[in-house]
């Protein structure tokens, strides 16, 4: 009687659609802009190189969004991390290792405080993290209003260490150029894998989903809602700190205006990847594709390269809109079935 029907449920269906749309879009880009190098493997790797920090930050964002929360402070945490890291190394002679510790400590502190306010004080996450965003940005400028360039040798060695891959392309001049990545990519991908495993295979991960699905029920089912939420924000904070550090490895500097709007990128990546702001739904894999999709939309626009500033903004959001609407249409089609 109990035939377990192997049917694709709504969410994994959407994830498939998202991945498919990404592949179609990227393939289209490769065909249209073949002469502009879009088809090169390095172009694809660049998506990861440029978005390593964002990917890690978006992982944290995904987790808090699944608890039905949100964290809009990640951008300013990133800026704060970059500034502190740069300031410590350049003005206080800290080593690159100490800098990593600072980055994680900032993330941890943010996670603890915001997590406490959200879970134990029951203050709305948007407001808590909005305050966190204000605070981080303000602190950054209190530390220094100047731009600080990082000249620390070990740090630069990390940042500039190219890892060549056994693939590559020939340049117009006939030179073989091997494809490469930076260590940041490896770290980001590792973190992604760890988070994906945590969300799928640990009690904490599943509790996060349960809380997002229905907080009251989760409580009644005997889950420790408050502690789980605190942990979620803690993890998010640490990931923001880590992401900030990766971001810093990419930009090698600290300044006030850094990473503005990263929070919106992280949120929209997660959403494109199928995470619901109302909680309970979303996967790290989805978010990965969300990041890749956002990255390739920008990449397509840059490659096109004849748009004026305002058309860039409009096109960017038109593509985003197209994507989101398409998803929503697929979702409702699925529901009707």
């Amino acid at each position: 009687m109990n035939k377990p029907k192997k049917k694709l449920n709504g969410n994994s269906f959407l994830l498939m659609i998202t991945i498919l749309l990404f592949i179609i879009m990227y393939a289209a880009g490769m065909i249209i802009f073949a002469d502009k190098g879009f088809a090169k493997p390095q172009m694809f790797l660049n998506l990861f190189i440029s978005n390593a920090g964002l990917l890690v930050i978006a992982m944290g964002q995904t987790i808090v969004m699944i608890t039905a929360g949100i964290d809009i402070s990640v951008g300013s945490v990133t800026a704060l991390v970059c500034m502190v890291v740069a300031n410590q190394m350049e003005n206080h002679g800290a080593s690159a290792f100490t800098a990593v510790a600072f980055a994680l400590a900032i993330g941890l502190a943010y996670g603890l405080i915001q997590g406490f306010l959200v879970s134990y004080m029951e203050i709305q996450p948007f407001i808590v993290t909005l305050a966190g965003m204000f605070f981080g940005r303000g602190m950054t400028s209190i530390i220094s209003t100047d731009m600080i360039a990082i000249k620390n040798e070990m740090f630069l060695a990390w940042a500039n260490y190219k890892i060549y891959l056994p693939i590559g392309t020939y340049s117009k001049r006939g030179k073989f150029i091997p494809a490469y990545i930076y260590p940041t990519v490896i770290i980001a991908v590792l973190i992604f894998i760890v988070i994906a495993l945590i969300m799928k295979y640990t009690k904490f991960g599943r509790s996060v989903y349960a809380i997002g699905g229905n907080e009251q029920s989760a409580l009644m089912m005997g889950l420790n809602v408050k502690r789980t939420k605190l942990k979620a924000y803690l993890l998010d904070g640490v990931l923001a700190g880590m992401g900030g550090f990766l971001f810093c490895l990419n930009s090698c500097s600290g300044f006030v205006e850094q990473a503005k709007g990263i929070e919106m990128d992280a949120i929209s990546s997660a959403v494109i990847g199928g995470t619901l702001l109302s909680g309970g739904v979303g996967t790290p894999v989805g978010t990965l594709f969300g990041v890749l999709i956002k990255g390739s939309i920008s990449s397509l626009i840059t490659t096109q390269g004849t748009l004026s500033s305002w058309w860039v903004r409009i096109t960017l959001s038109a593509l985003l809109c197209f994507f989101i609407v398409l998803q929503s249409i697929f979702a409702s089609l699925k529901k009707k079935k």
Partner: protein
Amino acid sequence: GNKDAGSSEGGSTAAAGSESGDNITVGFSQVGAESDWRTANSESMKSTFSEDNGYTLIFDDAQQKQENQITAIRNFIQQEVDYIVLAPVTETGWDTVLQEAKDADIPVIIVDRMVDVSDDSLYTAWVGSNFELEGQKACEWLNQYAKAKGLTEINIVDIQGTIGASAQIGRTKGLEDAAKANGWNLLASQTGEFTQAKGQEVMESMLKQYDNINVVYCENDNEAFGAIDAIKAAGKTVGPDGDILVMSFDTTNAGITDTLDGSIICNTECNPLHGPRVEEIIKTLEEGGTPDKQAYVEEGIFAYGSDVPTITVDGEDYEVTEVTQDVIDQRAY
């Protein structure tokens, strides 16, 4: 059209390309379109590197984000452009990506802000404004003007640009040094974020705190407009015969119009027309020459009336242009 793959041999690809009717490809990463100045700057690039002039311009708008620019440059490298022109959002953090460009043998020309890199060979040349010099010029003008007018006590407030922007840093430094040197009374500094609305709000607040302000040093024209409104709303007057002198930078069309009637007493230019300068550099490179590492664009200083005909900064003389309708009409931006 970038179909010169066949004719590509050695380093003179682009030159060969342009001779055979093919275009030189230039990738330009612009900060954004945050001000009229920036729009004029983009326009200058676009009109210089047009198809008609034998170029293909790949324009990228970074929307004020450095990370976008880093991505864009990587993209340009993959597109194998002939030159990269970079108007950096920030001065710092370019080592890695410029190294990638260097590895790919693509010359990089920096415009507007300078970059702060560990190795100067990472970029080929720089074209831009000297913001500190702008500040020094403006302050020197004020110094001369005060002498000419017999102003003994100068109570000045500084409406700064967006904190951390090169223009803000340079212009503020110019003022702070001059205030110290000349014994001016620098009452307060507060950022107006280069906008009219904030400029007005900040000025309103300053006027309530200090009633002896006689000079306002606005770090761009928009802030100056706001400040003028705030001053008028407070029942004071601006201009040579008024209560408060308003100084400004950028010399946009709207700004210089206010200089015509003295509302803005002195307006220091910040020239956005970088296109021709960059083209000169590219031409030099195409011909196998070595361009100057640094090239400042020429910038004037405009003032109401002719009380101060010339100023001297660091031993160099600069002529002060008296604003007339003709001057305004003849300006390109």
